[in-house]
């Protein structure tokens, strides 16, 4: 048994909830800071990923497709990179062209605040700023769940 086999890869798990988005700051690519709770009024998918995480290699392009599909309807996808070394993330991003908003948290403060239990983890936030759906891990079914949940939130007024 290897250490890698102990890591939570699959199957993915999901849950519905309703709690406020934690007020926690992360960095943008140019060094500015943004608060993940400052997106009220928009539907936001916050995804915690890292370049070393095997399922993230699958989920990242899928999130990019999702974002391209929904961005005109006011949906934002924030990909929060948790690599300790920025170079690792940039190498990954160089190999995966995307349109996502990538944010950086090398100290891991934001996943602590969100209660991340596995990689990748994603949180879908409604317009009121409440986390409505959570996902841990990634499989083909998760992308369908994302669409279903975002469509539900888009139908709410």
């Amino acid at each position, binding site marked *: 048994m*290897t*250490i*890698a086999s102990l*890591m*939570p890869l699959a199957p993915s798990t999901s849950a519905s909830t309703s709690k406020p988005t934690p007020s926690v700051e992360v960095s943008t690519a140019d060094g500015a800071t943004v608060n993940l709770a400052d997106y009220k009024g928009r539907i936001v998918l916050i995804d*915690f990923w*890292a*370049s*070393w*995480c*095997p399922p993230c290699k699958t989920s990242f392009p899928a999130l990019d497709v999702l974002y391209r599909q929904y961005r005109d309807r006011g949906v934002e996808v924030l990909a929060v990179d*948790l*690599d*300790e*070394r920025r170079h*690792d993330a940039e190498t990954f991003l160089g190999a995966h062209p995307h349109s996502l908003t990538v944010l950086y948290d090398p100290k*891991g403060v934001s*996943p*602590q605040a969100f209660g*991340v*239990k*596995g*990689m990748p*983890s994603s949180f879908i936030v409604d317009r009121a700023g409440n986390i409505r759906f959570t996902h841990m891990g990634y499989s083909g079914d998760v992308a369908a769940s994302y669409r279903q949940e975002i469509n539900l939130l888009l139908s709410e007024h």
Partner: protein
Amino acid sequence: MPHRRPHTLILAGVLFAAAFGGGCATVQPWQRGRLADNCMVFDADGSQVAYMTHWQEAREASAGGFGVQSGGCGCK
């Protein structure tokens, strides 16, 4: 002044070490980058393992020492 038994002091030392000398730490999911590194995986490269095993069997005349997959005909 009462005489303290040595094993009492040893027991106190063991309890102190157990309470304050723990070396375990919880590694959070997002802190596993180094653990997930390819160099941390035993036999990560299957092709290289197969090559090295074949080479070692030939050099050491130890064919079968790593297990055999044939039916005993010696024609592995």
